[in-house]
């Protein structure tokens, strides 16, 4: 049901912002993909067959990756502007980390260690933001070098009001990023781009493991990180796409 609602959001993109995003995204998508496939992707349907790997289709995939990296970079930039170390120190996730069950002493850490922990969290979130910005720059430059046009930054709709919501959404976005890269890598034509995508995918996976841990969930929930199709990823990302 939730998935249906999300899909319907893609169907009803209507604001100027959404139209702009759709145009930008389509510009990348239509470089190579057939119109039928493109329309299916935008409607949130799984294309019956993915487009065959080709140099032109590589630009489509790079713009898809760029869209996700722009979403991540924007998300961390907003969150780290909105929240301070003190906000993370008072978060439920942080309290759970300090007092996680299963330790014989069960005692929370000392005040000094708490300070160090929260500084680590803030510093690592900043490092993750920097990585996403580097991914954006690299993908943008790569698309240009291949003669393509990078998508413009969409006006993302990111509604989080607490540090906990921010940390939770961060984990969702990173795990989604892993699934997106792992799904897309099979469709990439240029071997150098395959390798480049793999080196980004494994960094997103590192972020995901860390954020899962911060949120109190399993850092590596499965032996294989299954890839997701473009349609599946867009369904997940739809609520953030303005």
């Amino acid at each position, binding site marked *: 049901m939730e998935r249906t609602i999300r899909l319907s959001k893609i169907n009803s993109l209507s604001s100027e912002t959404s139209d702009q995003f759709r145009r930008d995204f389509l510009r990348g998508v239509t470089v190579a993909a057939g119109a039928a496939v493109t329309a299916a992707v935008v409607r949130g349907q799984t294309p019956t067959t993915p487009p065959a790997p080709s140099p032109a289709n590589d630009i489509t995939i790079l713009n898809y990756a760029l869209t996700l990296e722009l979403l991540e970079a924007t998300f961390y930039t907003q969150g780290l502007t909105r929240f301070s170390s003190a906000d993370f120190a008072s978060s439920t996730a942080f309290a759970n980390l300090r007092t*996680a069950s299963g330790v014989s002493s069960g005692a929370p*850490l000392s005040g000094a260690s708490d300070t160090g922990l929260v500084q680590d969290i803030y510093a690592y979130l900043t490092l993750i933001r920097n*990585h996403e910005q580097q991914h954006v720059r690299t993908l943008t430059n790569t698309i240009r070098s291949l003669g393509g046009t990078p998508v413009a930054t969409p006006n993302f709709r990111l509604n989080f009001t607490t540090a906990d919501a921010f940390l939770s959404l961060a984990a969702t976005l990173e795990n989604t990023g892993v699934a997106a890269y792992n799904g897309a890598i099979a469709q990439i034509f240029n071997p150098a781009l395959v390798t480049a995508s793999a080196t980004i995918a494994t960094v997103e996976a590192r972020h995901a493991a860390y954020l899962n841990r911060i949120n109190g969930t399993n850092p590596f929930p499965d032996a294989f*990180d299954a890839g997701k199709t473009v349609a599946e990823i867009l369904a997940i990302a739809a609520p953030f796409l303005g």
Partner: protein
Amino acid sequence: MQNESSQNVGTRRIFALGAGLAGLALAGARTASAQSTANPDIAVLNYALALEHLEANYYTVGLARFAASDFNRANFPQVLGSGTVAGVYTNLTRIRDHEVAHVKALQDAVTSLGGVPVLACTYSFPYTDPESFLQVALVLEETGVMAYDGAIATLTAAALKSAGASIATVEARHAAYLNVVTSNIPFPRAFDQTKMMSEILAMIAPFLGNCPTAPATPATGTKAMLLPKNASVVTTPYALDASQSVAADGKALTYMTRATGKPAAVTNANTAAPIVQFNGVGTYTFELTVTDSTGATATDTTVIQYVGR
């Protein structure tokens, strides 16, 4: 002098493993049948399998050696809170299970392409306590990430690229976690580094003992096959599988399975589905002998690590 000596040993080990992998790729090519050329992905998958064997053995042996309480006493940094310490053994167990699953998946992939899966070597690892165990684990996982990130583009089948990536990112998750518990930055770069096979083989050479050479794969003849190969298992009694054995004349085989190392009871020993009963945690070797209608025999062995529940 000592450095030169150990370097020579390392070089020999690289050649041993490299030759073994090359031989297996060739064996796979022959097995794949005469009508088609070798699938080049077999060699890449066997390279990944060799790394996963190494990792699976590392965690299986290490976690049998240490108890959860050893890690609770270990001098871990508290940077991620007290819950980190409590979770270390649990998470190492999860990592072990992942590596065992990777071994199985890669063996199946190699076999499905008509290749012969590379066998595990014997290994030696320089750890002495829980702290150094985590340090070496980190080295292995970071090596795995660089190996997969370098090898994925060399695969030809699109589906295998995604499959390779789905393992690479799990190795990266392991690496991030092990960095955290060893007081290192979990994601030190915006782009992970890659290394080629020759570089990776040089890195793992110090951990390798004896690596089996490529098994002979006669085109015809009665052949014994005892599965699973070199598995680590948690249940007893445990069912082995001799049903992949082949009779040269296509007629029925007779089977005999026995424990040749650490003693273990074998029931249904004269069937294609023997059941073994482990007698405590440890390493067991089982040998299958099949006899065809002409009286010709063939044997096969497998090493099973029983790690307990």
